[in-house]
């Protein structure tokens, strides 16, 4: 019997003859926490090592990114960030990213070459599943897991069964990785892949760009998945070369690997998708949505799901020489400082400002209702983020509609939810 890529990576990290369903204590390659999850993880770590004089298991393998409520939105947030800063200093953490260098973690980590194919990567953030796009086993954990990982360099797992998602055909205009994953979650539901590895494959995936692959794996958690994963290929290697990542191990799934399920999609008929409140599974094709004229007060383009340069390029292409609708506040958030700088050099930032959008420093801010675009009661936003739960972006009577950057940009111009092909 063969193994899936997920099984192979986990087997390699626990020196055991194990397969899906087995519980293991695995050695991890990297671990990550942010300003919301690190303070608890640090408390846990201190409790474990108390009186032993021990430091973190490897100061090169612990990553700290204050990105959620930063630049510090209030005194309490400032206090949380201070905990990270002092801990990083005390333990000589190499990969602590201060404001000015930090970006939205799941845009930043791959860009910095800090995650590689074949690695086991855990993060105290549910969207850590993003890095499966590079062929790593990467998953979100809690703060206690992270505190223990910082001390031991280990984490417990149940090796997940895999569901293979096969995307056949050819993508229509303006259809992106975001639309594919919203469509997928719409088909299987927000618990359709609970505890499972979601392996994305097929002709469409083989041609899909790295930013789109990151977007798809990023939202595996929105279907309950433990990890999203894509078999690394030439596109992966070109990306790794660009970010200067030279040390990695590429795995493949065996032909006779066992899957919990195989689901095939014909992409020829998949349209741009919009997920209606209040679950990511409420996705509808744009042809159905456009006629509903769902009016919006805010459009957010950014986040760990869609804050990459390619996303900003698409938004800029649509917003060029256009004007944001007078009822709409359009907020563009480049994912990292590097993306921000490249967008500036390419003239994208100028396009956004001329259209009447604001451009924010990298932050998770509005995605989880923190700051930089919180909604009032009754307000609606179209957003390229990943969750549209009740109250996610602000007031519990506000609404979030999830979409691609193309749909968000077109909607910002029109004042209601639409796509570029309807402009």
């Amino acid at each position: 019997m063969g193994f899936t890529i997920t099984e192979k990576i986990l087997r390699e990290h626990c020196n055991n003859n194990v397969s899906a369903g087995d519980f293991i204590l695995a050695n991890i390659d990297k671990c990550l926490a942010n300003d919301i999850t690190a303070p608890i993880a640090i408390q846990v770590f201190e409790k474990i090592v108390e009186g032993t004089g021990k430091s973190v298991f490897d100061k090169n393998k612990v990553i700290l990114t204050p990105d959620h409520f930063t630049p510090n939105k209030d005194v309490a947030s400032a206090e949380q960030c201070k905990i990270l800063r002092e801990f990083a200093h005390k333990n000589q953490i190499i990969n602590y990213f201060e404001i000015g260098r930090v970006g939205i973690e799941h845009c930043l980590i791959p860009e910095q070459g800090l995650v590689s194919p074949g690695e086991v990567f855990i993060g105290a953030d549910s969207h850590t599943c993003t890095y499966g796009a590079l062929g790593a086993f990467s998953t979100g954990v809690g703060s206690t897991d992270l505190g223990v990982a910082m001390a031991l360099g280990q984490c417990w797992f149940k090796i997940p069964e895999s569901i293979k998602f096969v995307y056949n055909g050819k993508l229509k205009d303006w259809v992106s990785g975001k639309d594919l994953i919203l469509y997928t979650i719409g088909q299987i539901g927000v618990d359709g892949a609970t505890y499972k590895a979601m392996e994305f494959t097929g002709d469409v995936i083989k041609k899909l760009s790295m930013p789109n692959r990151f977007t798809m794996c990023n939202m595996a958690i929105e279907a309950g998945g433990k990890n999203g994963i894509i078999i690394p290929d030439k596109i992966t290697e070109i990306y790794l070369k660009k970010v200067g990542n030279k040390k990695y191990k590429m795995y493949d799934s065996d032909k006779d690997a066992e899957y919990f399920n195989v689901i095939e999609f014909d992409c020829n008929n998949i349209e741009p998708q919009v997920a209606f409140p209040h679950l990511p599974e409420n996705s509808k094709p744009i042809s159905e949505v456009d006629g509903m004229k769902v009016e919006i007060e805010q459009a957010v383009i950014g986040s760990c799901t869609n804050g990459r340069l390619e996303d900003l390029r698409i938004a800029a292409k649509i917003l060029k020489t256009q004007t944001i609708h007078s009822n709409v506040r359009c907020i563009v958030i480049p994912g990292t400082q590097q993306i921000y700088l490249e967008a500036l050099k390419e003239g994208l930032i100028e396009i956004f400002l001329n259209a009447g959008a604001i451009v924010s420093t990298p932050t998770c801010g509005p995605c989880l209702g923190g700051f930089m675009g919180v909604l009032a009661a009754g307000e609606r936003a179209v957003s390229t983020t990943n969750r549209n739960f009740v109250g996610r972006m602000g007031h519990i009577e506000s609404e979030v509609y999830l979409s691609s950057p193309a749909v968000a940009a077109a909607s910002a111009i029109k004042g209601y939810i639409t796509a570029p092909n309807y402009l």
Partner: protein
Amino acid sequence: MKGNVIKYDEKNINTDLIIPARYLITSDPDYLAEHCMEDLDPDFNEKLKEMGATIMVGGMNFGCGSSREQAPIALKASGIKCIIAPSFARIFFRNCINIGLPIIEFKDFDELHTSDEIEIEFTEGILNNCSTKQKYKIMRMPPFIQEIIQSNGLVNFARKRIL
């Protein structure tokens, strides 16, 4: 373990409902407990006190969403001693185990009601609804996980390993 049930029928009770992100500016359990579940049920804490409820029953895919450990911490600090649902989101599931908050997957969700008194025998794998006088089998945790729970959470488990 014995206790009274508080039940929420909703599916997908997510971590934003259990503890909204606007309160994540601290990790103080008592502060989190004050705001626990308030976007779904503003009277959550009062009901727990009135009913003496310590066992929470929820719908499918309980705890989905963010990895925030503040969600199970808030529930535990509110006085919840065990959570029962037909299925759980995976990060929430492991967070509960890691902080020593017992969690039970239980398909016969309709058999449990608010105010029922139930008794759980974890080592035997039995759930006893004292109010309806019905007994149910529940899954026994793998030994690996039992060891973590018996250590009262992952911290003590890890501490033993590092010493």
